[in-house]
């Protein structure tokens, strides 16, 4: 008897998810192509609702199906009563997240791309050590539940991750960047050119004194401002009451220029797919619009507990049951070209990367981070890298007054797209 049928002889609701993947990886270590890998993964995850109680189990062992069955029954015996309903079939938007060009990308082509990244960075800094990891694969997801939903799709993730280290005496500069996509991007190596530009700019070190000044966050640095917001819009944090945004839907908490969107339907983006991991269609979710709080992200269970509907943000891994997670997050483009923003800064700081992202009490909006990459801006130009600099603040204060948001945006760390963000004044603390 098929697994779903077996489960339904013992439960009112059941969901069977089969995950399968094949990935090929090429790795450059210290500028050389040293390792290649193939990975095959497969497994089954099941959930049931029995006597109103929710149970979960999973196995990557295809011979352990009897134990999978007994494990999920035992899990439900001790599960909470949750008013969750596995969804009936819903049509999803056509989302491009599978590209044969990626799925069939030969190892030689991956090696060639890796070599290009290494050569690009070494052309700027010949003594540098570059590590590059290139992965391409196919992921298959098949979900079947008792309400008749039968969803099956595949995705072709490609990611290229590079880190470069330059050591001169006791000065260590370490930079990192990546690209992630599900549809072949002709400009996939754009991230490497940006990394090379940062490397070139970072060569000259310039002093900076503690002072209040305008601070411009480059997209990789804007993550410092986005992270507390990402935690605040998680439906679980809202349900439990720890999000500062509880009860604030419809309220204007931020500057007009603050927008935040989650969208799992974007063609080719790293987090895209037609459905989420519970068979609910992906869609565009407005989280903050012109500074006004619009909504949060939910999976089925958190939505049921909160008395709302799932927003299509149920995400799982084989061994973890679904929980709310963003798909592709975006702070959409603003009004002002970057060149114009730069030109308007007489004395300021450009934030490239922060250390210790997420440390401290970020759920309350507070951040305090030393900067691993930052530059001094003087009369509209970058005049050098600054070391030993820290910034701190709370986004619920700082984002009330945003001086400018750039038209230019970049995908950072895979599936977050952020602009350059100029805050009119922050206290910048340095070692001087």
């Amino acid at each position: 008897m098929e697994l779903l049928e077996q489960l339904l002889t013992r439960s009112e609701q059941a969901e069977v998810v089969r995950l399968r993947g094949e990935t090929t990886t090429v790795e450059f270590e210290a500028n050389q192509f040293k390792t290649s890998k193939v990975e095959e993964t497969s497994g089954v995850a099941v959930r049931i609702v029995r006597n109103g109680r929710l149970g979960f189990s999973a196995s990557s062992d295809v011979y352990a199906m009897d134990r999978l069955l007994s494990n999920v029954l035992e899990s439900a015996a001790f599960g909470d009563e949750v008013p969750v309903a596995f969804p009936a079939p819903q049509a999803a938007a056509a989302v491009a997240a599978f590209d044969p060009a990626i799925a069939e990308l030969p190892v030689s082509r991956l090696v060639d791309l890796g070599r290009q990244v290494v050569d690009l960075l070494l052309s700027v800094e010949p003594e540098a050590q570059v590590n590059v990891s290139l992965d391409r694969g196919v992921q298959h997801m098949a979900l079947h539940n008792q309400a008749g939903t039968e969803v099956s799709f595949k995705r072709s993730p490609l990611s290229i991750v590079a880190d470069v280290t330059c050591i001169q005496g006791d000065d260590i500069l370490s930079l990192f960047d990546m690209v992630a996509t599900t549809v072949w991007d002709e400009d996939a190596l754009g991230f490497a050119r940006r990394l090379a530009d940062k490397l070139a700019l970072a060569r000259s070190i310039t002093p900076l004194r503690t002072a209040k000044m305008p601070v411009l966050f480059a997209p990789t640095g804007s993550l410092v401002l986005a992270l507390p917001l990402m935690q605040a819009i998680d439906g679980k944090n809202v349900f439990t009451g720890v999000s500062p945004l509880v009860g604030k839907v419809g309220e204007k908490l931020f500057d007009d220029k603050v927008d935040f969107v989650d969208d799992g339907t974007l063609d080719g983006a790293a987090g895209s797919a037609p459905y989420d991991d519970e068979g609910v269609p992906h869609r565009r979710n407005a989280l903050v619009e012109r500074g006004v709080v619009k909504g949060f992200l939910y999976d089925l269970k958190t939505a049921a507990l909160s008395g709302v509907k799932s927003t299509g943000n149920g995400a799982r891994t084989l061994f973890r049951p679904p929980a709310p997670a963003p798909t592709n997050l975006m702070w959409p483009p603003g009004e002002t070209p970057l060149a114009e923003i730069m030109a308007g800064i007489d004395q300021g700081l450009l934030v490239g990367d922060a250390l210790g992202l997420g440390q401290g009490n970020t759920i309350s909006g507070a951040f305090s981070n030393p900067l691993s990459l930052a530059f001094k801006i003087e009369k509209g130009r970058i005049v050098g890298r600054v070391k030993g600099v820290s910034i701190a603040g709370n986004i619920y204060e700082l984002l009330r007054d945003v001086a400018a948001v750039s038209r230019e945006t970049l995908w950072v760390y895979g599936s977050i797209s952020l602009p350059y963000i100029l805050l009119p004044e922050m206290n910048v603390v340095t070692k001087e």
Partner: protein
Amino acid sequence: MRDRMNAALGRSKADYTEMRIEQREATTVAFRGRNLETASAVIDTGGIVRCLCRNNGWGVATFNSLEDLPARVEQAYQCARAAHSEQPIELAPIPVRDERVTVSLDHDFRGVSLGDKKALAEAYNDILLTYSDEIVDTVCRYADTFSRVCLASSGGTFIEEERPEVSLFAMAVAREGDDVQTSHESRAGQRGFDFVQGCEDLARTAARRAVDLLRAESVVGGRYPVVVNPLLAGVFIHEAFGHLSESDFLYQNPQAREMMVLGRRFGRDALTVFDDGSVPGLRGTHLYDDEGTPTRRNELIKDGILVGRLHSRETAAKMGEQPTGNARAINYRHPPIVRMTNTAIEPGTVPFADMIRDIQLGVYACDAYGGQTALESFSFSSGYAYMIRDGHVAEMVKDVILAGNLFTTLLNIDALGNDFQWAHAGGGCGKGNQFPLPTTEGAPHIRIQDVAIGGK
């Protein structure tokens, strides 16, 4: 399984081939606030083959299906052939071992019902929830995992090991208006169910501290003499120094090797730091690492001088040193890389009271809630802290973030306490994609002069 593994290895055309197969069962009970997130058990089985072609490079195949092991070996071999290293890759020799390591747990958690595990976590969660009205959210998680790992290599090694771990994590979130404060405690070990029983104080401490932090002032940022508690000192030495001792950072990088040259002074005379994967009962302990190298005590800093580092077989060969038993993989989906095991600062002779007696204005920082190092720079968030005023521990402060340069900070350690502790905390170390790897940190109280504390 042993015969199948050796038969598959025997047909490999690579210079070195290694196969590791793992069968794991794990149970998790997790509460979030009043809700049970999950009470469930999972089964995870799979393997990895690593092949080395000396003049090409490494090939790795990972898989869930254990059906056709020779095909996996062939796949890994072809991957190795595809690589293109400019210099030949060698592996330092290790003794051949054939051993079966079993465990005997007091109150083996495999014999405890899911109902009892849930009742345990629920009771601790109730302590968190009911501590005060200001507690608005909790996380309480019980987890156990039992793995059987078989490692076979073309060198003739065959090691079978049972790996248990049990853990408890309790976090309380307190809220007053817009101010939200968090505190957590955890306990983990290669032990049985009894290791996480009777831990009511652990839950009470997490709840009490979250509430206390609501009333604490934010620390005023600046430079202070800082006394660091054993938990935070251990995390500091692991993050800020331990990672620099991992030779895969050094072995291909001439400038890094110059920076970490043996004989260089790293601290004052009293400072001794070591990593030891053979200490009985600690989370990072195994008889052998994941290449089959016996673990042992490795001195890293002795009397203030850099004397050693941590190796895999490859980094040891490259640097002309001995393997140290520090090649570890988090599970079968990953190849072993150089990792710490149990890392510690040796105690000194200074009692805590003496350490703070001469401090007119300083900070006593405790526990680590996250931290990061970018090689020479580090940043840690301390869980909670107190001001030191006129030689005494004074009011609680919050938002204490310690940051700085590793080298100057180590040289500024001017007192080592006489109160060494290994931390039996949960969590784990992250490096590459391999998180969380169980490690242990140990230290006494330490005093560091002139630390930059981030604050308002």
